């Protein structure tokens, strides 16, 4: 990464998840100058927090590895982490973005040796495990973090802990004097790829998320299954740490609901089908998965994966949206209440653990994007208003990784046309 000067032929990519990384790399490999801005200390976004991909059940690590290699080898991309775009002024072919960067308190001398983390005593909830466990206040976000550089949490700045971190560093990488900075970046086109966030499950009141410890979300379940996760890859119940062998998956938790998210989040059916295979992987024939659904939407060409899971005797399908969840006070088992659409039988089923297949909401809603864009009623970008700002990935729709990458490549084609036009006009 060289320090490139941004001009009106630069493409600004906002968001460093799989879509933003893809967009930045595709544009850079076309020979365009790219500035990639990411809010968190690392690239990779939510993709890096998945255990496996559907339908092949391969690990996201491998795809990320390839992208990070492409990134390291490309001189056209400048990555700015821990920075947010707060304003975009100007017009197509001539934008100026205001970027506010937060201090990392660790400079580029860092070798990711981990001495600072060993020296620091205070702990913070680990956002890379959806706060399921804690991490030291000086931390490397995760094993795949890019840049491979530690971060010092602002909560310990000014305490003896921060001084301990500084003293522990043999390379002079801890710089406690770092300040918040504001940069102006010129760009000809902007690709907005800020991705998605899980819908706030606590808002689905009848499911008791937040009240019942054994009701978790699908993104948290990914972390439980992951060897880098809080349980070291064991599927354990949050209430008592016992093995959860009888697991219920509730589809459309927040999605397709006028009271929550109006849209179908599209990936959750495939995600739950995939997660039943985590249960099988962990417990073999002893595992029990039950999927409660309205209708299974195995998007794209994934019907064969659905059929494969249907044949699995450990997986049961119940056509019903669960009405409410209660809890057995003694065992803390969640009890699901509802009526089965196939025959209208009333059920009252007890499970070890409930996984809510939580819906996808845009991370930054259309109305909150600091540029003029057209968004749909869920806040996903439909189009930029003046032809030089393009949405990519989950900022535009509820997409899986595959489709996010396609969407990012499509947005690059549009952005490249804009900066090519600028280049011709100036030549």
């Amino acid at each position, binding site marked *: 990464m060289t320090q490139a000067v941004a001009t009106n032929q630069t493409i600004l990519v906002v968001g460093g998840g799989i879509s933003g990384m893809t967009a930045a790399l595709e544009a850079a490999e076309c020979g365009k100058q790219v500035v990639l801005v990411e809010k968190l200390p690392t690239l990779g976004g939510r993709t890096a927090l998945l255990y496996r991909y559907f339908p092949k059940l391969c690990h996201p690590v491998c795809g990320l590895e390839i992208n990070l290699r492409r990134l390291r080898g490309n001189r056209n991309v400048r990555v700015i982490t821990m920075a947010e775009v707060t304003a975009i002024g100007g017009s197509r072919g001539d934008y100026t973005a205001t970027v506010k960067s937060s201090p990392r308190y660790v400079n580029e001398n860092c070798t990711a040796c981990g001495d600072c983390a060993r020296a620091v005593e205070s702990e913070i909830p680990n956002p890379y495990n959806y706060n399921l466990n804690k991490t030291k206040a000086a931390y490397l976000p995760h094993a795949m973090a890019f840049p491979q550089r530690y971060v010092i949490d602002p909560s310990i700045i000014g305490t003896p802990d921060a001084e301990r971190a500084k003293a522990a560093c043999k390379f002079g990488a801890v710089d406690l004097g770092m300040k918040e900075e504001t940069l102006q970046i010129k760009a000809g086109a902007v690709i907005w790829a800020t991705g998605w966030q899980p819908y706030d499950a606590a808002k689905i009141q009848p499911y008791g998320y937040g009240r019942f410890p054994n009701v978790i979300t699908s993104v948290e379940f990914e972390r439980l299954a992951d060897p880098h996760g809080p349980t070291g890859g064991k599927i354990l119940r949050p209430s008592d740490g016992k093995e959860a062998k009888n697991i219920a998956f509730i589809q*459309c938790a927040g999605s397709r609901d006028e*009271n*929550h998210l109006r849209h179908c989040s599209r990936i959750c059916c495939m995600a739950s089908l995939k997660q039943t295979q985590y249960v099988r992987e962990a417990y073999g024939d002893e595992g029990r998965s039950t999927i409660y659904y309205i209708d299974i939407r195995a998007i794209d060409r994934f019907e064969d994966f659905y059929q494969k899971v249907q044949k699995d005797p450990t997986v049961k399908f119940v056509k*019903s949206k*669960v*009405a409410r969840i209660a809890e057995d006070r003694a065992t803390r088992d969640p009890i699901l209440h509802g*009526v089965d659409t196939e025959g*209208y039988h009333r059920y009252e089923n007890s499970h070890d653990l409930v996984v809510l297949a939580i819906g996808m909401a845009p991370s930054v809603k259309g109305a909150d994007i600091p540029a003029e864009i057209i968004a749909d009623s869920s806040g996903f970008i439909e189009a930029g208003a003046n032809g030089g700002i393009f949405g990519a990935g989950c900022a535009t729709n509820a997409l899986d990784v595959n489709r996010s990458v396609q969407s990012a490549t499509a947005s690059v084609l549009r952005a490249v046309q804009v900066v090519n036009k600028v280049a011709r006009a100036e030549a």
Partner: protein
Amino acid sequence: MGDMNIQAIEQYRSDFLKEVEERVEEGHWVKMCMQCGVCSGSCPFGPHWAHPPQEIFMMIRAGKREEVLSSDSMWMCTSCYNCVVRCPRQLPITQIMHGLATYAHRLGLAPRNQPTRDFSILFWENCTKTGRVNELKLTLGVYFREGLMAGIKKAWNMRNIGFGLLLTKRLNPFELFKGHACKDQKGIHAMLKKAQEIEARRHKLPA
């Protein structure tokens, strides 16, 4: 009443969904149901219904006219609105249940001796007569619904409350003979007639 039923059967033939959409209060929402089952699972009276709301909607779409209209299920609705609050498609389920009950009653298909229906009829006749509810007559009407002996027995069981109401001047025995009325009874009756006309027009009911 029977004529209205025959007229409806002739007009809509086998298209019961269309009949519901046009003639039942909020009936146009029925096609929006996606059969998720949250309403049935959320209903506090759920286990006591022959057909929960989700099933009623499916029966309407399947054209099961007789079964739906003669069912006592929708009369079980207590208007708690739990289903309306939770319905992912925001169907006004409570209103549809009452709409179906009203329509079945008009056609003369509603089940006989259904307590909710009996009470509704009693209440409606009581309050529209004078424009005010005569509580004494209403209460006695409910007590004696199942015959003279049953009525006397119920009234006897409630005697202490009755005397209490009498002592605190909450119950006037003379209400039994004449009862108080609103000032403009004619106006009330004209208003109700007009409302019925508007409703008949809106739901394409035969005059």
